[in-house]
């Protein structure tokens, strides 16, 4: 299989992890109580660790002498390829919880499938990630139940978050020509097939949490082509500040 295509695939997965890890890390010292601060920082750390594995692999395949940091810190908005759901601002604790739940459920299925990739490096990263994802899902699932089936206020906040996020979930299961070609070569995951398993899993939890499955249309998406929400530029301005202000140095 063509190295460039795998590099692009690894970059996409790295960007997903980096951008969501960034959003989670914003919770540091802002969590509802200390235990939750610790848990959220810990989850952020898992995502940043995953981003490093994918991006350094992408840089290695590219073979142009770039590093994980060059990819993370010197690309602009249009070159970032993460799915939009990951970049939305962290919102309140309900928004963060619901997003984590939707994404964790998809990640468990995705990384289980990626463990079978014919690319040994992707399979190895997936094997490490899937263990984290299962734990993340257990946690976000428990929180979804507590908040959904907690007070009137917590239910309202969760339902609002679910409605706001729902339109972005379609993109989690979209394939384009690149991923289709990689799938044919046994490298990539069939995202379309994941949806059939994701939807019942998510619907059951939403129901158990006494929330309503939104009947809302999919939003346009575009992350894989670098068409983002307005939020990503601000995230990058913060993430990349030091490297942009003092370019080309070692830290």
């Amino acid at each position, binding site marked *: 299989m063509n190295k460039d295509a795998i590099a692009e695939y690894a970059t996409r997965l790295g960007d997903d992890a*980096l951008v969501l890890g960034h959003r989670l890390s914003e919770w540091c010292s802002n969590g*509802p109580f200390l235990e939750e601060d*610790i848990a959220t920082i810990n989850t952020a750390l898992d995502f940043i660790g995953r981003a490093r594995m994918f991006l350094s692999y992408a840089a290695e395949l590219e073979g142009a002498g770039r590093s*994980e940091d060059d990819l993370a810190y010197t690309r602009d908005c249009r070159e970032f390829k993460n799915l939009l759901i990951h970049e939305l601002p962290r919102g309140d604790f309900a928004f963060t919880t619901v997003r984590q739940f939707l994404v964790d459920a998809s990640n468990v299925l995705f990384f289980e499938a990626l463990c079978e990739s014919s690319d040994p490096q992707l399979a190895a990263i997936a094997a490490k990630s899937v263990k984290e994802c299962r734990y993340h899902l257990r946690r976000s699932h428990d929180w979804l139940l507590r*908040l959904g089936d907690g007070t009137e206020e*917590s239910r309202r*906040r969760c339902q609002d978050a679910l409605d706001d996020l729902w339109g972005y979930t379609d993109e989690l299961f979209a394939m384009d020509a690149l991923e289709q070609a990689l799938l044919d070569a046994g490298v990539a995951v069939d995202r379309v097939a994941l949806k059939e398993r994701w939807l019942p899993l998510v619907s059951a939890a939403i129901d158990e949490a006494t929330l309503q499955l939104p009947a809302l249309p999919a939003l346009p998406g575009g992350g894989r082509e670098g068409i983002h929400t307005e939020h990503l530029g601000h995230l990058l301005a913060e993430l990349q500040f*030091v490297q942009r202000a003092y370019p080309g140095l*070692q830290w």
Partner: protein
Amino acid sequence: MSQTETEQSKTEQSLEREFQARVDAEEKIEPKDWMPEAYRKTLIRQISQHAHSEVVGMQPEGNWITRAPSLRRKAVLLAKVQDEAGHGLYLYSAAETLGISREELLEALHQGKAKYSSIFNYPTLSWADIGAVGWLVDGAAIVNQVALQRTSFGPYARAMVRICKEESFHQRQGYEIMLALSRGSAAQKAMAQDALNRFWWPSLMMFGPNDDHSPNSAQSMKWKIKRKSNDQLRQEFIDQTVPQIEVLGLELPDPELRWNEERGHYDFGPIDWDEFFQVIKGNGPCNRQRLQHHIRAQREGEWVCEAVRAYENKKRGRKAA
């Protein structure tokens, strides 16, 4: 004094003698043991101050997590701040063994009755400040905490053993940041020097006032809550840190720092105690910001705590039904 009161005070006196004898014999005092009320209060004050410092310290360090200049630095900083939060948890638990709840401890913090380390009332303005905080602030904390591993109250001493191991990793991560900067470009070196200059004096102040101005020290030493005096600990910190500054190749932040052969220690210039007392009183650069941040996060999380309680109640109700 009535007869029973006299007897009670006699018992009190003999309990206190026994207590002191145990402390003198280096036995650890455990939560259920008899202890003088003042010993309990002193420990609550000190342990909670320590716990609050770990937690409030997440703010100036968290300030740079989203801007860390490399993914490796970001991951290490996340891990470090997570450790600090964990230290806060053990310490709140150690304080709770003395019969006070975490809610009460936080209430005292929010009302300004309980303190936290004054160093966290200074802002982290550059990436080098994260290096300086790890190196100097955690370095100073270790000097303090190594001594506290032998403190007389068991849960506190045991928490310190665990915390010290992690803190030495934190100090290394801070020093490693400073090392990279001091071997980097002119701009990076200037950034490192500026951070050292700004954090040096507040780090020395972390050990508290001079011994002759430290009102609680003598009693704490007698109870072996404190094992070394403020000035002794400060001197140890300076003696271990000056050679590290030299390795970095940075200028000394105090022109009066020089080795005194006769004393076998470094001499240093006068500390601005007015600044120290201003910050302690709440008038440092970030006091209001730090406290308001903590209060805001707790207030914003109230609905989450209510939801957790409501959910647990429903679950119990369903089980009972």
